């Protein structure tokens, strides 16, 4: 459905993305994961026909995004990161306008269906400027849906929402993904894991890793980091913790805390708890630390090239450094 080959975009001398290659199959939900400034928005803007690439090609439904831009735009529903709304319009008239410039013939039906899908029917006659952030986000999503596109491109669809709204929007995206091809960007790892069939991790304009959520999770949780806090810290605590089977490293932190790394596939928590209690140091806290995106990038960029999750193209770029 979407084919991207050697896609490159320069802003002046600065490369926002370099030689991106990926494909999205029909009906797939692809997650773009990466920190701010990684090139997610640039890639999405190129796919949506907003700006042309500096080099390389991108095709949507076999139409080139540059040569057949209008054909591509007819088939795409795009929700930019800052949801572009006309604050003075009502939800209904805004959606009707978007439907009209996208050539929808059955406007009333399509607008109603889009509002229904995004659960905003009760706000149909509200002025957009008076809506809460969560509702605006959903109006933005309804706007992307109103012409019933084959492909949805959603740039950070859950940013700025409260936890309840985030869950609702994720559910909505999953629902929509049954019949549509979706690309969504996020900088939240768990979001990509929950919502997407496949995740593409992108950093500094290059694809760092690609795979299903399961593949990535396995790979990223090779070692587990534990946070241990004791009442009476001391050098003997470090020595004792290091001797626990499966522990590969102990880093002292402030306030009697230690960062303990365990080998992959081993849960050392029971053994660590026993050790601390037996030593009489007073166990205050013991928990697994969720890896932040920064840790993942550090890990991914420090790792060897040949891993199952990396695809061919990524290996080349890593070697090329």
């Amino acid at each position, binding site marked *: 459905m979407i084919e991207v080959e050697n896609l490159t975009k320069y802003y002046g001398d600065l490369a926002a993305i370099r030689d991106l290659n990926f494909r999205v199959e029909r009906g797939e939900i692809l997650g773009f994961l990466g920190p701010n400034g990684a090139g997610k928005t640039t890639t999405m803007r190129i796919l949506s026909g*907003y700006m*042309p690439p500096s080099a390389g090609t991108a095709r949507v439904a076999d139409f080139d995004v540059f040569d057949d831009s209008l054909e591509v735009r007819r088939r795409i529903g795009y929700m*930019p990161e800052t949801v*572009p709304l006309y604050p*003075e319009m009502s939800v209904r008239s805004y959606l009707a306008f978007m439907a009209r*410039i996208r050539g929808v013939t059955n406007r009333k039906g399509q607008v109603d269906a889009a509002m229904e899908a995004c659960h905003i029917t009760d706000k149909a006659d509200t002025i957009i400027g008076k809506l809460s952030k969560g509702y605006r986000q959903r109006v933005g999503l309804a706007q992307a849906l109103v012409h019933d596109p084959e492909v949805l491109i959603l740039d950070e669809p859950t940013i700025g929402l409260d936890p309840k709204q985030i869950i609702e929007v994720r559910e909505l995206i999953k629902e929509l993904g049954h019949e549509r091809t979706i690309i969504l960007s996020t900088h939240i790892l768990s979001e990509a894991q929950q919502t997407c069939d496949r995740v593409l991790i992108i950093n500094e304009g290059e694809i760092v890793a690609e795979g299903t959520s399961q593949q990535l999770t396995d790979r990223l949780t090779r070692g587990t980091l534990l946070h241990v806090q004791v009442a009476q810290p001391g050098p003997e605590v470090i020595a004792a913790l290091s001797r626990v089977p499966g522990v590969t490293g102990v880093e002292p932190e402030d306030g009697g805390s230690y960062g303990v790394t365990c080998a992959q596939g081993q849960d050392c928590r029971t053994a660590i708890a026993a050790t601390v209690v037996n030593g009489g140091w007073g166990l205050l806290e013991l928990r697994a630390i969720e890896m932040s995106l920064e840790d993942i990038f550090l890990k991914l960029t420090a790792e060897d090239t040949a891993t199952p999750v990396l695809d061919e193209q990524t290996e080349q770029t890593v070697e090329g450094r």
Partner: protein
Amino acid sequence: MRNTLAIAGRELHAYFVSPIAYVVTAAFLLLSGYLFAAILLISREATLRYLFGNLTTILLFVAPLLTMRLLAEEQRSGTIELLLTSPVQDWEVVLGKWLASLGLFAGILLLTGYYPLILWRYGNPDWGPVLTGYGGLLLLGGTLLALGTLTSALTRNQIVAAVLGVGLTVLAWLIDALSQFAGPPVSGVLTYLSLSSHFFDFLRGIVDTKDVLYYLSVIVAALFLATRVLETRRWR
């Protein structure tokens, strides 16, 4: 054309929910009504010729105020991304925006329609120059609005768009001011380029194809440039 009308319709609606349209319309009608009364009482002539001549000066300032929002606001709020990723040509966006401002301006001109009615009630105006005068004002207005649309495409700041617009319209109006010192052929060129040199025949009841073509070509050129400016946004 369908897209153009959709964009124009949305824009006209936006005019009337913001205070701009009301304030500008009110100010224009107040000034022109005052001038109408003053000129009528002094000259005691059943003609709109002098009034129309004076209105041009006001128009130079009013037109950029009507157009400053058109593309600048879309660029500031990011809604331009929505239009440029919809299956709409860039020129359709620009044309739709300009048509909306022209529609509003035509509405304002229509509201001045009671001046000739007053003249007709109490005197015997010559209808030819009144009608061609209105036609000339509409053409001149359309040209000024097209120049304003161009400056609105250049920036995301409405105030900057308005100031640039006033600068451009006043310059285009006065560009022949130095022509008598320039000597031919420069003087001829300056006179031809000037917006003002093509206007005053309309007030005498004369419609010269050259003048009509001149205004139409300035409109097309300004809207074409505005489209190109909008297109360059894609390359930035």
